[in-house]
């Protein structure tokens, strides 16, 4: 009798606990995940290799250095992208001021034309320098733009379904993300188009612990329709370098600071 009571209590409490944690965490998981993937440390630096491969296996490579500085945790961020290779785009710089509520600011410095240009983008789902990555994939999609729904929990991960608040602004109808329970890194995102067909997959290929931060060191985005894919690998990742805010200004586009070059 007592045993049975105990059992009931346990079952009840577990059920209670689980339900509460479900309803609470959908948004929280995403929030945590956002921080884990884009806001590690106060700033960061990384060498990036980008391999773009089309459906015929024809490759294009780019190498760059990315500097990042967070202005608010989970909010505004600054990115400085310096091109190392190929040689005909060397010294090109992209500067991005990521905003949460408004469009990002983007600048482009084209050394061969001695030109600094503001690029206005109507949305963040434009290609990042010809790759399968969108700007949003590089700098992160604002968590407020989607409604989140925890649709499944496995031993190691949460599966969250994200439906856009403003469906007209994007080309997908929803995407599901598999989020690692321990690191909160999104491991795989599958995008479904407006006809209900999966057309795009973003996956993490390797994760390393760097200075206590679980860091994605290789990821891939595949376009299932065109058959093209881009693999980005990160190396020499560093955090908390104390990057100065002024580096991330128009002034430093022409005069690339050392830390961004080497």
């Amino acid at each position, binding site marked *: 009798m007592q045993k049975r009571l105990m059992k009931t209590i346990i079952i009840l409490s577990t059920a209670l606990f689980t339900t509460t944690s479900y309803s609470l965490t959908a948004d929280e998981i995403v929030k945590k995940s956002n921080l884990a993937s884009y806001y590690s440390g106060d700033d960061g630096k990384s060498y990036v290799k980008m391999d773009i491969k*089309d459906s015929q296996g024809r490759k294009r490579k780019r190498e760059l250095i990315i500097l990042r500085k967070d202005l608010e945790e989970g909010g505004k961020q600054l990115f400085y992208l310096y091109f190392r290779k190929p*040689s005909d785009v*060397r010294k090109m710089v992209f500067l991005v001021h990521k905003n949460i509520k408004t469009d990002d600011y983007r600048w482009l410095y084209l050394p061969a034309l001695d030109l600094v240009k*503001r690029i*206005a983008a*109507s949305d963040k*789902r434009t*290609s990042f320098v010809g*790759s399968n990555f969108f700007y949003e994939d590089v700098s992160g999609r604002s968590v407020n733009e989607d409604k989140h729904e925890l649709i499944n929990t496995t031993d190691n991960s949460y599966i969250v379904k994200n439906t856009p608040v403003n469906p007209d602004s994007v080309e997908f109808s929803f995407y599901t993300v598999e989020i690692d329970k321990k690191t909160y890194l999104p491991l795989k995102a599958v995008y479904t188009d407006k*006809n209900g067909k999966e057309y795009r997959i973003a996956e993490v290929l390797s994760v390393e612990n760097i200075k206590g931060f679980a860091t994605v060191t290789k990821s891939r985005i595949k376009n299932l329709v065109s058959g093209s894919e881009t693999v980005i690998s990160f190396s020499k990742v560093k955090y908390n370098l104390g990057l100065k805010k002024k580096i991330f200004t128009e002034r430093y586009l022409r005069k690339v600071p050392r830390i961004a070059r080497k």
Partner: protein
Amino acid sequence: MKAKVITDFSMKYPKRVTALMIVITLIMASLMVMIKVDTDPENMLSEDEAVRVFHNKVKKEFTLHDMVVVGVVNDKHKNGIFNVESLKKIHELTAFAAGLQDKKNEQKRVLSEYIIAPSNVDTIAQAGQGQVRFDWLMKKTPKTEEQALKIKAMALSNPLLKGTMVAEDGKAIAIYLPVSEKDFSYEVRERLLERIEKFEGDDDKFYITGLPVAEDTFGVEMFIQMAVSAPLAMLAIFILMLLFFKSIKLIISPMIIAVVTVIVTMGLLIGTGNTVHIMTSMIPIFLMPIAVVDSVHIISEFYDRYDKKLGKVKTIVKVMEHLFKPMLFTSLTSSAGFISLVITPIPPVQTFGLFVSFGIMLAWFLTILFIPAYIMFLDEDKISKIKRDDSEHKDTLMNRFLKRVSFFTYDRAKLIISAGLILSTIAVYGITKIEINDNPVKWFKKSHSIRVSDKVLNSHFGGTYGSYLILEGKKDSLSLKEISNMVLKQVNDVELKKAIDAPLTKALNSSKSEGEFFTKLEKEIETIADDASDDDYDRLMSVIDVTGSIKNRSEIFKKPDYLNYLATLQKHLASIEVVGKSNSLADVVKKVYMELFEGKKEYYKIPDTKNGVTQTLISFQNSHKPDDLFHFVTPKYDKAAVWVQLNNGDNKYMEEVVKSVAAFIKDNPPPSELKVGWAGLTFLNTVWQEKMVNGMVNSFLGSFIVVFLMMAFLFRSPVWGLLAMIPLSITILLIYGVIGFIGKDYDMPIAVLSSLTLGLAVDFAIHFIERIRETYQEKGDLKETFKDLFEEPARAITRNIIVIAIGFTPLLFAPLVPYQTVGVFLASIMLISGIATVILIPSIVKTLRNIFFRYNKSAV
């Protein structure tokens, strides 16, 4: 005589013969369920044909697809097509089209990712405060007329879109729908038309065209025609024969022969695994008249000769004796005309020739085997009754007319011969004016909606006929040592030279390929740079610039001089009348470069350096559709495609463009030698056309000689052989002379019809000459002979002319021009060769009687 053996057999076992024929026909008919249809004119070239291989390679390398073109025109609204209502429809139609896919095979679809439409193209434009903006041209339907006009301004200011997607007059927009397979085009058109039906208001006119649509729709309509025109022709022939012979029982037999011939031939074609192609689908139409001709000769003669006293058995035996030889030879000659097509280099034409040729011999065999058997089934009383009813037949209109012709040819022989000569001379002049040309869109009659769409859209846009001019740099083959020296030479700094000496040697000694060499070299240099001071780091990295430029030296289409060359070439293209528009990488670079410099006109040019070009392009690649670039250039930048839009798809114009470009490149050489090639459906058509025309000329000449030899053999005399060739030659001269004079293009159907002409036009002459010689032998007097000649033989010919010529008039009402052409041709062949035979042959024989009968006497 062999004829007697077969005839006797057939008459002895009429039931078995008939049963056997029915069984074989049923078996062959059952094979027809295996039908595989192929309506792609591309298959006029064999799979491994060099130009076709190149075409497919280009399509792959530049991710190009065959496109269905949907044009929307609005002449009514003051802002043309750029009004809220029209744009809304275009937006909806594009979204609808993007989802089109085959229900059975999802791979067969509209390639939504490559659609060119206002909602699917990205534009680059000024966005105030020195900003440029990449944005969809029309992401959402505009709400106000101002917004619509803004879209107009944006579209027209984009040189890639103007004349291609938007008409310069602002009255039309074209949506380009790439299809994964060409044979999905018809369905795309059908489903679009259904959707368009649902739109309200009729200010917007919708037009659908493009070569894939034309070709695929032609294929579909062609098969409908097969099911409509062929039976209609059969019906017409049936009615005409009924008028002549007044007995359904009697005339049903030619019908049976025709149907059995067509079924067995098509069954065999399909059963042997051949696909039914545009060409081979015309086999029934070709076989029917030929199959009917022989039986009409038999029936006609049987009908004329039948006499109750003689009885049907003896009559048919006599008729078969008379006709066996001429029928065999008319069949052999027709067959030879078609079998010669086997030597053309075009696979579907070869198959066509082979099977028509087979069908002709089959028809002959069936005729001599089955007709006597069939006669055995007829009731003797009924036949004699038909004859009695037709008691006036001695004095019919036809008989009176033929009698008069008989006198005329005898009295005015020289006049007739001179007239024939004069006509032929004029015809030869006409033939010299023949223009070889074809255009699949013109296979539809003028009022067909595809023809109309073609006309309307080509008046609004740069052109709906796409072809691609491909330029490719030639690869050098430098040794690693030479490359290594090049690097050293281009590094100016003495200290740097020293610094990279070790990495160079190391890379040189350990590398097998150029790629490996550069990877190792750059890695070595970077390793050194990592440990160097900041200044040295930058200097060492500048070496990477050098190695990079050498490594990528084949990327010629990033170089300003090559892009400027493209632009010059395009300027030349624009000067060719039929070229409405051309697009290339140069246009992309110029447009983006100008927008980077606040849209100032003076910057509408190619940047001065390779890096300048590359950086302009990488700016472009921050758009929604960065890969659009690779429709114009390969990712390695070693090959470029210039999209050439022609507003007329006639082969002759395409050929003109190809020639003109070749001449221009010769006179204005590019910065370095480039391989020049063409791809695209419009171009492919010119290639198979040329093969076809040359092939046809050869096979025609070949079979002309073969037919002559056969004639000489049949009559055991080259002189009589030559005589037999005269009506045929005149028929060909006159028909093709008229084609030259009226300016009708010498196209695919006309080329193929030359074989039919050859095969059919000699038939009457064989019958006629055979009878002249036979009768002359008998009577020994020419005048008497002619009198006899204008009895049964002339009547049989006249009946044949009328049956075939009028019987195929239903073809004239077909919506497809090749079918109309066949109808006109059949009538012309029959009429001209018939008249030439009946009038010319007696005249010539009379005039040159000494020659003919001297030879004849010695031969017979």
